[in-house]
């Protein structure tokens, strides 16, 4: 194949997945654009956003790839069964790792901004937002990945080809949406306690 044919083939194969993922990214952006009040109220939250989104993408991308491999190997049945030990272990590991890394990212963000002398919300506030956001988005993404991968597999599609875009698209939207929910929850709790961040 010459340069032109190679370029055309690569372009054609990549465009649909990139376009779908870009639409998801734009909707995530709209939610982020709508939470400017929360971003102002919880100082340093914007700094945490890339780490939270990337963690979500890696954890659930890997979870999806693992389920896809399990289906191909025949060690996982394509139905949601919480009695299935393998499925339960993979889901628990994804959820636990996602929450743990999000909490570490919150600590690192507060530490870095404090060292730089920037204003940052207190550590408990950042930890609370990271905890709520990572638990809620983790539960939703576990369900979405399982439902989409199993439904696709039963209809005869190879999950390897679609699990990546599904995770990046829903991961970004769910990640930012639950970040907004978490920030509002923590701010409401603080308001109820009479303190402000």
């Amino acid at each position: 194949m010459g340069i032109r044919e190679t370029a055309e083939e690569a372009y054609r194969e990549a465009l649909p997945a990139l376009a779908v993922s870009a639409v998801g990214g734009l909707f995530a952006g709209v939610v982020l654009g709508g939470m400017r009040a929360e971003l102002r109220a919880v100082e340093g939250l914007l700094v945490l956003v890339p780490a939270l989104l990337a963690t979500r993408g890696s954890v659930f991308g890997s979870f999806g790839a693992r389920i896809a491999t399990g289906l191909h190997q025949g060690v996982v049945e394509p139905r949601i069964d919480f009695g299935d030990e393998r499925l339960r272990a993979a889901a628990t590991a994804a959820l636990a790792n996602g929450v743990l890394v999000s909490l570490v990212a919150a600590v690192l963000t507060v530490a870095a901004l404090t060292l730089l002398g920037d204003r940052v919300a207190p550590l408990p506030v950042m930890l609370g937002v990271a905890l709520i956001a990572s638990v809620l988005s983790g539960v939703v993404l576990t369900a979405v990945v399982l439902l989409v991968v199993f439904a696709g597999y039963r209809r005869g599609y190879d999950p390897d080809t679609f699990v990546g875009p599904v995770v990046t698209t829903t991961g970004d939207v769910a990640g930012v949406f639950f970040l907004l929910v978490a920030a509002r929850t923590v701010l409401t709790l603080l308001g109820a306690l009479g303190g402000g961040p």
Partner: protein
Amino acid sequence: MPTEWSVRAITRAMLPVLLVLALVELGSGLVLGALEDRLLRSPSLLVLVPVTIGTAGNLGSILAARLSTAFHLGTLSFDPGDDTLAGNAVATVALAVTLFPVIGLGAWSLAALVGRTTLAPGTVLVVALSAGVALAVLAVAVTLVTTYAAYRLSLDPDDMVIPVVTNVCDVLGVVVLFAAVVVFT
């Protein structure tokens, strides 16, 4: 050999990578933080943030996956005239030129739909397109350097190139968006 299906084994395989990654992403978070005032004033630019990071990472990871496969099949040679190398590099830039103007206008339209915009649609389009093209060129450079390094160090590019490229492109996405915002607004 795939990882065993237990919480402990999966965690042991994933956690170190995830922690390093979180540290790298903190770098791009700090760049975003430096731009916070301007982003909070212009909703269309804030809308651009996740989609620019995501598309940059996707462009890099697709290119890296394709070059890794060509490398494994033995059809890749590190020569600027190599068909696979040059063809995929051209496709990456072409994809950015196609997608980023649509992304820019999409970001402005969505921001206008849900609220008030402070920038002209043309400005947002120019920011998105220039950031996108710069990112595509950087993604090609980073992918080539990393794939070549993997080849020289006899590492499997599947293990190394894709995570490195995806994360470097994530960070570069924010840095380039920052530069484009400073230059054009």
